């Protein structure tokens, strides 16, 4: 009984410790997004007229670097919620080009944005306002382009420098690709290691050059490869590592297992399987009569 109570108190203590740890983590996470948040929140709080003046602000923004760039929350929101299906002046994607909405009255535009909730999830009233103001602004396209540039710059800043060792690990599958695509060695070989369904990539860097090779990897240009990587794109970062690996590969010893030992293993394995079966069943196929005759022979001998 004492032991039981002891266990219960231990469980309680662990639960309390777990809850405390959870709270600390949650608090930490709540703190983190709080830092980028204030900018959009403050501009959202400035209500209608505010997002309209910012268009003039982003222009000097590049010189002023990040803090001012963050202020265009309308364009930021557009990139998060709308840009997957719409452009402004860039032509139709899955959804129509929204350039024509510039001439819409605001009271029609806002309900139209709200109707998109079925695709993008709940939108706050201030988000709808921001998006409507952006779409009605004459320089919406420029603001979105600016935001795209900012995101691209941010992404580039986040990328690590290309690393041949990481590239090799990605190529041979020691490190999985972020989006779950096949490792390259499933179909390609370098220096005699890897698959042979697709082209041997030994010396591909020298043949193609850095940029075309990179865009071939990232853009997945060949039909078989397109099918294999549909919905599982190779990221920019991974492309950089892979290109670096292919650039340096001839000088390195690759770590993928070459194929012939595996063929030998297959043949040896099959041999072992046949031997195993033969041993396991060696008495099985004698037949009843053979056993009787053998028995009789033995008895007559003794």
């Amino acid at each position: 009984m004492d032991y039981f109570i002891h266990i219960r108190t231990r469980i309680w203590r662990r639960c309390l410790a777990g809850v405390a740890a959870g709270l600390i983590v949650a608090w930490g996470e709540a703190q983190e997004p709080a830092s980028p948040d204030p900018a959009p929140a403050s501009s959202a709080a400035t209500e209608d007229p505010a997002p309209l003046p910012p268009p003039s602000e982003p222009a000097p923004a590049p010189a002023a670097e990040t803090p001012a760039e963050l202020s265009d929350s309308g364009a930021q929101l557009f990139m998060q919620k709308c840009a997957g299906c719409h452009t402004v002046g860039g032509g139709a994607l899955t959804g129509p080009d929204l350039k024509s909405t510039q001439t819409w009255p605001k009271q029609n535009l806002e309900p139209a944005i709200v109707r998109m909730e079925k695709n993008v999830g709940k939108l706050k009233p201030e988000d709808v306002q921001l998006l409507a103001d952006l779409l009605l602004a004459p320089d919406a396209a420029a603001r979105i382009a600016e935001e795209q540039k900012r995101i691209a710059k941010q992404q580039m800043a986040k990328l690590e420098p290309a690393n041949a060792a990481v590239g090799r690990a990605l190529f041979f599958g020691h490190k999985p690709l972020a989006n779950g695509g096949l490792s390259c060695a499933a179909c390609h070989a370098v220096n005699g290691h890897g698959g042979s369904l697709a082209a041997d990539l030994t010396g591909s860097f020298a043949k193609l050059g850095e940029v075309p090779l990179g865009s071939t990897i990232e853009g997945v240009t060949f039909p078989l490869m397109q099918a294999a990587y549909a919905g599982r794109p190779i990221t920019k970062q991974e492309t950089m590592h892979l290109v670096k690996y292919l650039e340096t590969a001839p000088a390195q010893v690759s770590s993928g297992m070459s194929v012939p030992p595996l063929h030998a293993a297959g043949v040896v394995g099959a041999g072992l399987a046949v031997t195993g079966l033969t041993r396991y069943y060696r008495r099985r196929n004698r037949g009843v009569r053979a056993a009787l005759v053998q028995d009789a022979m033995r008895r007559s001998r003794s």
Partner: protein
Amino acid sequence: MALSSNSLDIVLFAALPYLVLFTFLLVSIQRYRAQTFSFSSLSSQLLENKRHFWALVPFHYGILVVFAGHLVAFLIPRSIVLWNSQPLRLYVLEVTGLVFGILTLVGLTEMIARRFTNSKVRKVTSRLDALLYLLLLTQVVSGIALAVYYPWGSSWFATNLTPYLWSLFRFQPDLTYITGLPILAKLHILNAFVVIGLFPFTRLVHILVVPNPYLWRKPQVVRWYRPAPRNLT
């Protein structure tokens, strides 16, 4: 030229599959209704038992494992890709496939040799049987050749063959997944379709009436007519 090869692909990989599936279903059902007791492997075990055993056992162990591998890659391709994301696991899977593929070939070769060298068994062998053996041999040899010459097939089956096969079952055949495949892989796929089409006309129908309950039925008491071993009495 490109156009003609493309239209050949359409005939072989978009039209033929439906033709063979239709034949498979229709003839199997019709044969089962009309000639129920012809659903059999028409075993020649009674005519010759020794070689029969050493051919049949490796063949069936091999083909069951290989078939199960194809089925798993067809049903849960992502799991196969995830499994293969570690090179060691990939090697284990590929070698296992190769081992059982070779085991199938060993059994099949012995089956064919027995059927055509044993006079009693040859007497009960039809031309259709000969054709079936040829097709099965082509299938097994092309499969092993794929494993040898185009390794890591377990990976590219999951990403290219599985979506193609599913596109057939969705009635929206998508040939982009397979048009770029090497001729050996196309032969393997095509030959499989031919085997499926021929299936209901041959002794392969025994697969459909395999006595599964043997796996879970209660053990049967077998009484030997010879005296029990001394240590039991």
